[in-house]
């Protein structure tokens, strides 16, 4: 279980780095936060898991989405 989540984390972070559409990257980053929150919960750190889920998947996604809306969505080739 832990191994699967960690592999998924690496895949998601690589996708976030390489995606040309920034909105896809932000959604992948949000999924990354949810998965790492699950990982924290498995490792008996529920406080950190709550923080990661609320900050990483919630507030920072809103902030990134706002930043993309006010700038350019697609990365220049």
């Amino acid at each position, binding site marked *: 279980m832990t191994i699967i989540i960690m592999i998924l984390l690496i895949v998601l972070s690589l996708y976030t780095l390489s995606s040309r559409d920034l909105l896809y990257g932000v959604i992948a980053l949000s999924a990354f936060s949810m998965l790492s929150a699950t990982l924290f919960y498995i490792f008996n750190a*529920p*406080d950190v*898991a709550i*923080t990661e889920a609320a*900050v990483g998947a*919630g507030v920072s996604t*809103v*902030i990134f989405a*706002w930043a993309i*809306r006010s700038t350019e969505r697609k990365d220049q080739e």
Partner: protein
Amino acid sequence: MKESKYSKFFIFQIVLSLATVLAVILPIFLSRVPWPDLARNYLEHNGLRDSGARNLVSAIYLGYRAFDTLGETIVLLVAVSGTISIISHSGLSQAKGFGKGEIKKHTNNSISGFRRTELIDVVTGKLGPIVLIFGLYLMLFGHLSPGGGFQGGVVVASGIVFMALGSKTDSSTWLQETGALAKIEAAGFLFIVLASLSGIPGGFGFFGNPLSSSGASPVISIIVLNTIIGLKVGAGLGFMCIAMLGKVE
């Protein structure tokens, strides 16, 4: 010979960053120093008696290490005020109370700058109050169950954003009034400073728990601090997000 897709400099950058990561992480695995357990043992035996909090994490960050929490709240206050000053000077926000943006109200075809769908209206409008209650629960029960002031505050901020997204354009509760949120944030910081000074007259020092020797349970101090910090963080982050979303009254 075929031209490589990535330049040599790009590969060099990747190798360099991987080498740096290894140089940081490898000593942790290679070292033979035994894992430190002094603080852990102390907390296990004395934490509950000293602070009265069953959740030892909140006993640490509001009792033994309250200084760090004060620094954290100051950093958050500076971040929020900096962001809001940049937003309000750029004129990007159309939220009420940000003078420059108000003039170009209703220039876009879509209401308040972004398209509204039935899904957003229904789901966020119904989910907002539930998220708010969950945030309050995390805040008030941080000494017993996982959670605490900061986590609860962030969840409360998410609830405020949900309600701001879900409400109709011509109706808003006082929770979305930027003035009220700013007042809560400022009052929260004032109360944190007052609470940190409250131990000094009894001789417990800065951030000392004034209840630790009286008959009352020392956990009351943690509950009060959790509530104040939660309100402050929730109001600050909610204020910032509403300013970003450009909610038009």
